[in-house]
């Protein structure tokens, strides 16, 4: 039994700059090939989808399990309700407090005349 064709995302767009073979204002379709690669085509959407289905399957993403987990969830809108807690008070740092922080929790490195070595 032949494998089911891969359904790739095809998106409509419009040419605003002119790579070879395209003119400004032309209506195009973008076919997602991989997370960082798209094909821009002047073909109609049906042909773009056929072209997309014929492309080899992209390598599996390290994030595929996470993507599967959230598949189909509607995009976020708004915030979850919160319940009030204690108010965090603003606070100043005196010279002594700032120096104590900078002294007790010491700098990673002293100032140098050139950039520090790579750690």
């Amino acid at each position, binding site marked *: 039994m032949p494998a089911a064709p891969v359904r790739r*995302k095809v*998106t409509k*767009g419009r040419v*605003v*700059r002119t790579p070879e073979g395209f003119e400004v204002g032309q209506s195009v379709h*973008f076919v*997602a090939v991989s*997370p*960082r690669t*798209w094909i*821009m085509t002047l073909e109609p959407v049906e042909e773009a989808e056929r072209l997309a289905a014929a492309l080899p399957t992209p390598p599996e*993403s*390290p*994030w595929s*399990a*996470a*993507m*599967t*987990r*959230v598949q189909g*969830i509607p995009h*976020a*809108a*708004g*915030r*979850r*309700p*919160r*319940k*009030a*807690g*204690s*108010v*965090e008070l603003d606070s100043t740092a*005196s010279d*002594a*407090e700032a*120096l*104590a*922080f*900078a*002294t*007790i*929790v*010491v*700098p*990673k*490195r*002293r*100032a*140098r*005349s*050139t*950039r*520090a070595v790579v*750690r």
Partner: protein
Amino acid sequence: MPWYDDASLYYGPSAEVLAQGDIVVAATGVFEGDHGDVSPASPLHFGEERLVQVWLGSTRTLPEAPSLGLRAQWGLAMVLPHACALEKEFNEHVALLVAAGHTQPEAEQLANDDVSLDRFIALAPLCTYAELALERRAGVQTGARLGAFPVPENVSGGIPAAWVDLRRISTTDVSLIDVEPLRLVSLSSLAQAHLQAALAKHWAYRDLSRYDELQHAFGQRITAVVPISTGKKMRVGFTLEDGAQLVFDASDKPPPPPSAPARRPRPSRS
């Protein structure tokens, strides 16, 4: 097994609201120079990146802004602010409303309806180890490398072994991420403490191991550090776990405070 290698130590139960270290689905981004184009479509996969033109300059002189691009990434990101910072304006507003005569539930409802409260949240993207030079992986995986924070694999959350890039922190409107399904996992208290240490080390370039060394020298845990103001001379008081009080005076000639290291000049824009 240490915290950075043991998912049972690293991950913990989620709080009712967003908390420091939560891993969420979000967009993060970095502004770049004169690059990019109009993005044809939204990303379809996690880890996908777009370099889009934000605006185009025309004069190449001030006060006009230069051309600007945004390298935007869609995927997983870690919440960086402490939970208290994420609720500060909300709590203040509720307190004001209650003081003005509203009941607590009314005040919470009104504050929840105000989308301007605690609107901004800092996030840093999760990256795969494939994006990292081989010689740097061990330092990142063990939490030793400045500017990075390790994320061990979480099978139930669908998260591979990854790391958080603290150099690519960006600000996002919290309403884009504050929905439960978009939070995949949360950190344990121990991992949150390591995240706070990593943030302090990266942003203030502090070496927190000195604090451990002090406790080791004292032979017990320090429970309080109090700077004592005595005019020009610095004096610091330590309280130890057994209640002992130690006071240290700075020498008469303290070393100068650290200044910013000199930076290599960057090439000017033509």
